[in-house]
């Protein structure tokens, strides 16, 4: 009888032993998890690829990323779920108008700023506050909506937003279909009426609408769905329009004949906040996540890999001038009038719909 323990048995025992030792840590990793809502498409793909794996490695918190629809669809879903005590995502990337609207229903759990190490380095527009000063959201990413063109159709880049009004561009434009995401009123005000302050009064708003209506014959597509325009821009079917600077940059780097131009009046700078649903039971993990995302090194990594403009002061960033220029610009941006979009939403929407449909 052979009593010697074979090599194979030892190995098998080692595997079982290692498995038993490994088990608790697997359970711990599953314990600590966070559902993060990120805009679907390029954003989600880039975050899944470049950002979330390192976060899990650094903190042991597993990230389950959820593809959010843009606009207010996600806000409606979050709010309805929160009323039922559910959180489809613990942390969500939210645009500024939904941030303001979510504040009015106390959708966002207040954030403890002492848990964010680089809180002091955030640019002021990237801290979203409740009326009473509680913090509702922390800047996640900023992005630009710029004037985009198909390079095959337009060998020369346009210089001004006035190109949208140029009669030579009849039936060639793709513009965002909603007053609340196209920010074209702000563009009109900045391009023709000296700045977005021109929209302070209803008279000023009507003047901007009137000027904007002149663009209609040039517009081939008023798009709600980004994929719809992106495809048409790449193929040259709709060779000019407004689109996201970062996404256009990524498409160009993949070899598509598209370019993004900052017009001399400035690109539209929009931004998103990280906000935590009040129904989430994972505030602790959420704060670890927001703190991690607000580090200069991660903001720099996002600028390089995702193409977003950083939320922190320029001087704390490790971006080279070239890297900074690729995601941002020295040209003063057009900042959307979120206050108007939150408070006069219905009136603006009605006028807008009548303008483009009528």
């Amino acid at each position, binding site marked *: 009888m052979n009593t010697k323990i074979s090599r194979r048995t030892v190995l098998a025992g080692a595997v079982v032993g290692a498995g038993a030792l490994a088990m608790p840590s697997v359970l711990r990793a599953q314990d600590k998890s966070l559902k993060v809502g990120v805009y679907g498409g390029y954003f989600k793909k880039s975050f899944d690829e470049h950002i979330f794996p390192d976060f899990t490695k650094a903190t042991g918190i597993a990230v389950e990323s959820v593809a959010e629809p843009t606009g207010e669809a996600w806000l409606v879903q979050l709010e309805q779920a929160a009323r039922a005590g559910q959180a489809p995502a613990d942390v969500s990337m939210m645009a500024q108008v939904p941030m303001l609207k*979510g504040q009015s229903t106390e959708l966002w759990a207040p954030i403890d700023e002492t848990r964010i190490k680089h809180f002091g380095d955030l640019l002021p527009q990237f801290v979203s506050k409740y009326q009473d000063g509680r913090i509702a959201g922390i800047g996640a990413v900023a992005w630009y909506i710029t004037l985009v063109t198909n390079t095959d159709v337009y060998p020369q880049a346009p210089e001004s937003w006035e190109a949208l009004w140029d009669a030579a561009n009849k039936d060639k434009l793709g513009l965002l279909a909603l007053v*609340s*995401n196209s920010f074209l009123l702000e563009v009109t005000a900045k391009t023709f009426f000296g700045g977005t302050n021109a929209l302070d009064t209803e008279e000023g708003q009507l003047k901007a609408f009137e000027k904007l209506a002149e663009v209609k014959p040039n517009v081939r597509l008023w798009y709600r769905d980004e994929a*719809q325009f992106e495809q048409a821009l790449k193929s040259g079917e709709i060779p000019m329009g407004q689109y996201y600077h970062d996404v256009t940059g990524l498409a160009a780097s993949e070899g598509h004949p598209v370019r993004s131009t900052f017009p001399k009046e400035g690109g539209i700078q929009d931004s998103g906040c990280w906000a935590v649903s009040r129904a989430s039971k994972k505030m602790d993990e959420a704060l670890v996540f927001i703190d991690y995302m607000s580090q200069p090194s991660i903001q720099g990594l996002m600028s390089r890999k995702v193409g977003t403009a950083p939320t922190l002061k320029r001087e704390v960033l490790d971006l080279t001038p070239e890297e900074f220029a690729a995601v941002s610009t020295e040209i003063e941006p057009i900042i959307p009038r979120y206050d108007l979009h939150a408070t006069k939403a219905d009136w603006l929407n009605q006028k807008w719909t009548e303008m483009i*449909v*009528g």
Partner: protein
Amino acid sequence: MKREHTRSLTDYAPLVYPGLMLIIFFVVPFSTMIAVSFFQRDPAGFYKTAFVFDNYARFLSLFFGQVLGFSLLLSVLVALCCVTIAFPFTYLLVRQSRAIQTVWLVALLSVLSLSEVIIGFSWSTLLSRTAGISNLLVWLGLIDQPVALLPSFGAVLTGMVYQALPYSILVLYPALVRLDPTLVEAARTLGASPGRAFFNVVVPALRNTLVATIIMVFVFALGSYLLPQILGRPQHWTLSVLITDQAIYQSNMPFAAAMAVFLVLISLALVGLTLLVGRRESAA
């Protein structure tokens, strides 16, 4: 045949299940929608429970009237196109061998598996200038350079007819299969041409089925909101598109609900009117 009167509660038992389903999937959601349509919109957020007519008042304007009118017209046109194409097609189909019929029906069913998004994007590619069918016409020498056939009313109509056609055929098919072939034979024996026999015998014999098909496609088309966006210009947007804008993008549930309730009531009224007129005619 004498019809038995129902005597006890158990005679109604078979109605319990369908009744329950109707309550869960129609009465409850629709009642919720009616209730929400009277709620107070909160522009800074969502809505408050209330009983106001503001949402209906906002809808009663020339602008929304025109959009509603366009939506109804488009749906009627889609329904008429579908029946005009589907009826002769199905009539010819049921005369084919079993094997050929099966192939056609499987093909039609596979079209039903396509989502509205896929149909919309496929047609927008087919009708585009850069990759569309006009390139084929250029290659054939029929036109000089490729043109974009969208966005246009024709593109919207084409897409919607394409989407609804399989439903029309599948509704017409059983009725046409059951149609007594001797009816046409008799007409032919009495000297009618095939066309005349079709229009004077087959069409009247299946009048009710045709009306039912038209109503079904009409209601189906009324709910379409993606195809008008993808294939049309803003003036071709249906009321359903504006309802979606309000519900999803403006988070104005009360107004969206009011528009939806209005749309349902108008379409119910139209369907009722159609049936009423049909009954009058058949009684006369």
